[in-house]
């Protein structure tokens, strides 16, 4: 097991788990002995092969599933029956299938569903409805039925309905896996904006670009934490990549091929950096 703990000190941790386990059958736990902490404002990618317990882990954080053992503390509150309501108010979740998380019959009703549950005044609800629909570019879709929206638009509605509740932490459970390339890029831009605004983001993903954009990676394997490292460290570890069924980002793959052909290129952080590195070769020929 690899442990490259980047953040294990709980100084400003908004989420901390200590020896957490979960299983429907005590003989066969799905998650065992998970210990980690996430500081405020960090963007964490959670990776691992299918069935390794990623979704189970994030569902434990707001008690959608009950832990079997260990301790979970969210925003300074230990997760117990009495604190579930308050903790759910501070954690928002965006799920994989945007169709199944649409509670309202229209975009407006769906966003209001969470706000009405917070018992907000009309003015407060109206202000948040306008603010977050404009922010996510869906203010023209308020009267639309989910069947009339594209996958990307549905996922924007799901994000707006979560952000309007003003949680400090947002969890994305493979939220981009059912989106096309364009919608994925849009989601990435939204996530980058959220990070700039100070949200703590936990994102279950298999997408190399999303992982590369994050601050930290938690790799799960067989129900336990296999590694806690930076995205760059993950993409340099070919064995871990293979175990997590992940591929390097495209610029990394290209740089590796160029190195094989004898062209000296450092592993770039982005496509732009790769282009900047390769550009001088144009003139040297």
């Amino acid at each position, binding site marked *: 097991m690899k442990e490259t703990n980047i953040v294990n000190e709980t100084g400003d941790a908004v989420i901390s788990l200590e020896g957490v386990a979960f299983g429907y059958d005590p003989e066969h736990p799905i998650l065992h002995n998970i210990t980690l902490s996430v500081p405020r404002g960090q963007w964490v990618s959670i990776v691992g092969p299918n069935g390794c317990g990623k979704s189970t882990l994030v*569902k434990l954080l*707001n008690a*959608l599933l009950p832990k079997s053992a260990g301790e979970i503390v969210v925003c300074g509150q230990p997760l117990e029956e009495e604190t579930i*309501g308050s903790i*759910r*108010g501070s*954690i*928002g*979740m965006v*799920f994989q*299938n945007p*169709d*199944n*998380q*649409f*509670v*309202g*019959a*229209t975009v*407006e*009703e769906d966003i*209001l*569903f*969470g*706000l*009405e*549950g*917070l*018992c*907000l*005044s*009309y003015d407060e*609800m*109206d202000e948040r*409805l306008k603010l977050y629909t404009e922010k996510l570019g869906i203010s023209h879709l308020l*009267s639309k*039925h*989910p*069947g*009339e929206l594209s996958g990307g638009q549905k996922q924007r509605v799901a994000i707006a*309905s*979560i952000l309007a*509740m003003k949680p400090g932490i947002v969890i994305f459970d493979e939220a981009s896996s059912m989106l096309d390339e364009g919608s994925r890029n849009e989601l990435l831009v939204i996530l980058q904006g959220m990070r700039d605004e100070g949200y703590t983001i936990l994102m279950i993903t298999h997408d190399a670009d999303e992982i590369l954009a994050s601050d930290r990676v938690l790799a799960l394997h067989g129900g336990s934490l296999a590694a806690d490292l930076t995205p760059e460290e993950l993409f340099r570890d070919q064995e871990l990549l293979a175990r997590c069924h992940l591929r390097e980002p495209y610029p990394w793959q290209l740089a590796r091929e160029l190195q094989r052909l004898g062209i000296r290129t450092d592993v770039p952080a982005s496509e732009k950096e790769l282009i900047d590195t390769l550009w001088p070769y144009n003139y040297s020929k």
Partner: protein
Amino acid sequence: MNERLLLGRSIETGSWVHKLDARSKITGMLLYLAIILLSHSWAAMGLLAVFSVAVMLSTRIPLKYFIKSAKPLRFLMLFIFIVQMLSVKEGEAWLTLGSFSLYEGGLRLGAFSVIRMLFLVTFTSLLTFTTTPGKLNQGLEGILSPFKKLGLKPDRLTMMIGLALRFIPTILDESQIILKAQASRGADLKELPLKEKGRMLVSLLVPVITSAFRRAQDLVYSMEARGFRMDAPRTRYHRLRWGTADTLFVVMFIIMGVAVAVL
């Protein structure tokens, strides 16, 4: 507009009916049911037709949408007409073939039943066409609120209705996908004999039901993650407001009921 999307969908035109309180529209529809049952003459039917079409036109929603809502029931209407025509033996015999006769009373009752059903389905679509599902639920909750004293929980009932309406198009879409997937593997429902169709329906229902359970589980997660708790207090963005127009709307149906009963 996609026909499947018409199920439980409102069509916004900003007409006076759209602006009414959902409770007055629900009350109006209940009164309309009573009016239909009170109509026993051609004159009453004629008056009802003029009234219904006038109200439908005033919503500024094209009449074709109302007619479309009755289309799925066309075979049921035909069945009712035939049964009434053959079973009622009143009045003059219009057609006699050996020992079998068709009577004027049977034809009249058959026609009345079909017209009543047509009015019922097309006119009550006005409620869902002019009211968003959220407002409709709120109106229903308001009307049922006196029954809270009897232990009924209107909010739970309306939540169930709302979610059912929300998911009907999604589940219909999914069944279409499953049908196409089965057709692509050589089991085309359209081309099978009736007996095989029955067997095939089972293989359609199993995945549709399994998927509906999975969707329900995801939906519960989504609702709980947004802090939803059954019976917990909630505020409302859209508030019900009963105005003069609502009173006039209900009075209009009462007057219509009296007129139809007199005719």
